[in-house]
């Protein structure tokens, strides 16, 4: 289940949206992304929270289900968006959480704004 991928992309398109139409387009893309994960994520709480959140946000912003969706950034664009962004407080070569606000592990509600979602991988033994 790769719901975090949908969350990350949505977070970017949502942040970049300037108009109500842009917000709706971001939500439609998010909806399409999560639907594509439906089979893999059916037991995942973060997935179900996302699906519910999308419905709520679409209702709040009066978005129709049909209409244009936001273009999905390529992985390089996603990296560029989040990595090494100039951050006056931490210096140019620090990873910046800017733009990742709201993306949390396991769909948990993060206590502080700007918290970045991290992933872990390990290999050991035989």
């Amino acid at each position, binding site marked *: 289940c790769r719901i975090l991928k949908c969350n990350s992309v949505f977070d970017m398109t949502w942040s970049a949206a300037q108009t109500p139409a842009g917000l709706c387009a971001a939500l439609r893309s998010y909806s399409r992304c999560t639907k594509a994960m439906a089979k893999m994520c059916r037991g995942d709480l973060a997935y179900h929270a996302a699906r519910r959140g999308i419905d709520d946000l679409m209702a709040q912003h009066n978005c129709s289900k049909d209409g244009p969706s936001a273009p999905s950034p390529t992985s390089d664009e996603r990296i560029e968006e989040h990595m090494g962004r100039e951050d006056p407080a931490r210096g140019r070569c*620090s990873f910046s959480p800017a733009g990742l606000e709201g993306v949390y592990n396991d769909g948990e509600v993060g206590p502080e704004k700007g918290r970045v979602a991290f992933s872990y991988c390990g290999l050991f033994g035989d």
Partner: protein
Amino acid sequence: PHLRTFHDDFQTCKVEGAWPLVDNGRLFVQVTNIPVVPLSSATASNKLTIIFKSFGECTEQKMYQAESGSLPPAFVDGSKNGGPRDSTGSLRVLELVPGHHIEIRARHIGTTVVVRQVGRYLTFAVRVPSVLAEAGSSEAGGLQLCLSGCPALERIHKEEYHALLARPPARAPAPATARARCKERLPVEDLYFHSCVFDLLTTGDLNFTQAAYAAFEDVRALYPDKRHLNVYRSTTDPTLRG
């Protein structure tokens, strides 16, 4: 080796030879595994190659290479940082226990890598921002063990573990002894514990107890969500129920 993926899948893999663990626009990691004992498909890692790619004004491309018996405190070119461009210390190699434990901090990509040598083999752990972990997954189409896990044919399934418990090889301790040794360091009977028992029964090499413990220490240090450090798998086998 035992693999905990970015998505918290826990697998025991064969993957003999060189395999990519991570491959994206900023970071590349490749592991090489060799068989540990005759008549078993189990392998362990004896080489790791890690490449931090060039990043604007922050760092030059740097390669770190560890092999069984050689865990250097520096990149291949002898430097311990990101080069002349790295005026702010974005990329650093830290030697925590000479010859046994190094950590590489890549501040510009929010990433920490840990490599250890335990006994004759290597362990690896990485913590990366999720957006970087997922990057390069679909467009490149290349295999990344950390992202997608080991291919199905390259996995060692629990049936093999059950067979080991039922009929341990001559070189191995008795299953009860293996469990007791693993429990000394890993009191919770999660998948780290069972990996430890599997390794002891496969090889009879007590160093693997230490490797499983070190891997769990790395999880404790690096894992983003402290509520889910342990990994369990439901089982109907009463010998594994804990």
